[in-house]
């Protein structure tokens, strides 16, 4: 933990929510209750108490809470959705001391189980830590880590980590230990269920082993079962929650449960999805025509694919199965003769990759399990530092802990 060097001299602090989120479905009552619980989290470990002030009260509260956007007349302008989420000012004598601002362009949520949006309670606990005098911590379980870690569970039951307690108690001492001193915790309404709750369990994006990965119009799609995630060129996932395959790809037959490969065709921008020994052609999100056999692309009857990608240097499409690959000339609309060939052309590539994709900068990525092998643009030799874990770089997953060596 880290201490800012300032702290409140008094033990009862007042607070008020001055403005509420405009673009969040959370009602004002829920926002106030979440703030109450976030403050109580610090209170129960230190003996600090917090009193809500109402708008009619002319006094200025110690902790004034606002939902603001972009430049809002302090040194920390917000930056739209993503990026910076919130900030708070350390204790002091200035009028802004203790004030806490949340970026109103975030989608603030409560009780979301699927990682959608930004959990207001988790961020509020963090910011109130600053309002009480704590800086950022590097402890892995600390709420004062600077990066958003996702929801922290039920606000009525959440307790600080040891690191956070120690930092707080350095400033304000420990809470009195009697059975009757636990502050009253307001009940919270149950979170509203997300719309169209899935009946299927949602896969874990951090477990890797994707069925297919494709660069489609600059975005990287990660397919797993009947779900997929989208990674924008900015490096941000559209959502931690995957989208449903059949709701997005209109016309994809319901019996297609897994996409084994996917790629975007350069000559006309069509998107091809592969499953079994067939493929489907989409214009944007709409299916065009019926399923087609892989034999059209030069593969033997009944053969399936592990990976398909289009290589920008020659405009050809490569279809990989196991340790072999075929090549298709999209421009001439015919398979190239003399195939299949051995995948060893791609020096360092894994056998039977989950998929292969080409990035916006022209590098080729072979993906397998939780790792990728990168081939710089124009090269058929993997980078020496391959493979690398893809979760932290692409999917907002924690870095893997030191363990067995990564696959060769």
């Amino acid at each position, binding site marked *: *933990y*880290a*201490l*800012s*060097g*300032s702290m409140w001299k008094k033990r009862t602090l007042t607070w008020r929510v001055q403005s509420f989120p405009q673009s969040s479905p959370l009602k004002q009552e829920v926002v106030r209750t979440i703030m109450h619980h976030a403050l109580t989290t610090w209170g129960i470990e230190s003996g600090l108490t917090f009193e809500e002030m109402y708008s009619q009260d002319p006094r200025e509260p110690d902790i004034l809470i606002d939902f603001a956007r972009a430049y809002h007349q302090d040194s*920390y302008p*917000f930056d739209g959705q*993503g*990026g*910076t*989420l*919130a*900030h*708070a000012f350390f204790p002091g004598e200035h009028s802004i001391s203790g004030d806490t601002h949340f970026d109103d362009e975030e989608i603030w949520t409560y009780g979301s189980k699927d990682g959608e949006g*930004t959990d207001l309670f988790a*961020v509020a606990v*963090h*910011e109130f830590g*600053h309002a009480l005098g704590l*800086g*950022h911590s*590097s402890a*892995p379980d600390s709420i004062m880590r*600077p*990066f*958003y870690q996702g929801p922290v569970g039920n606000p009525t039951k959440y307790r600080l980590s040891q*690191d956070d307690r*120690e930092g707080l108690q*350095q400033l304000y001492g420990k809470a009195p230990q009697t059975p009757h001193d636990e502050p009253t915790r307001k009940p919270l309404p149950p979170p509203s269920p997300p719309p169209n709750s899935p009946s299927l369990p949602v896969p874990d994006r951090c477990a890797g082993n994707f069925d297919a990965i494709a660069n489609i119009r600059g975005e990287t799609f990660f397919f797993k079962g009947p779900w997929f995630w989208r990674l924008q060129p*900015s*490096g*941000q996932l559209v959502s931690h929650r995957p989208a449903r395959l059949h709701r997005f790809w209109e016309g994809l037959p319901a019996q297609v449960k897994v996409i084994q490969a996917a790629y975007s065709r350069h000559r006309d921008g069509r998107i091809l999805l592969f499953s079994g020994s067939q493929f489907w052609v989409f214009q944007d999100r709409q299916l065009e025509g019926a399923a087609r056999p892989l034999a059209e692309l030069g593969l033997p009857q009944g053969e399936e694919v592990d990976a398909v990608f289009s290589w920008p240097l020659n405009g050809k499409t490569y279809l990989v199965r196991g340790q072999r690959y075929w090549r298709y000339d999209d421009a001439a609309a015919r398979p190239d003769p003399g195939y299949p060939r051995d995948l060893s052309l791609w020096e360092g590539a894994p056998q039977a990759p989950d998929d292969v994709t080409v990035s916006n900068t022209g590098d080729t990525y072979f993906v397998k399990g939780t790792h990728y092998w*990168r081939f*710089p643009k124009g090269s058929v030799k993997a*980078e*020496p*530092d391959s493979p*690398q874990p893809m979760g*932290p*770089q*692409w999917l*907002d997953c924690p*870095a893997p802990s030191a363990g067995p060596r990564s696959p060769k």
Partner: protein
Amino acid sequence: RAPEPSPQDVSLGVDWLTRYGYLPPPHPAQAQLQSPAMLRDAIKVMQRFAQLPETGLLDSLTMATMRKRRCSLPDVLGVAGLVRRRRRRR
């Protein structure tokens, strides 16, 4: 060797490190440039704080971490006597 970061990534990285306190803010009156060693050390401190491998390079993992959602406040609050960072003994 790991691939060189793009100029855009270097710019983003330096801005990020300055914003969150790992590098001092630039001074328009000073002719002295920021040394590569200073940048490398700042990256290492950031990596240590974020529990990343301490390569001293703006590698892909470091850049991905810099793109994560976070609090606006700096991580390094300044040397001027106001920071007391304590580490628990193992």
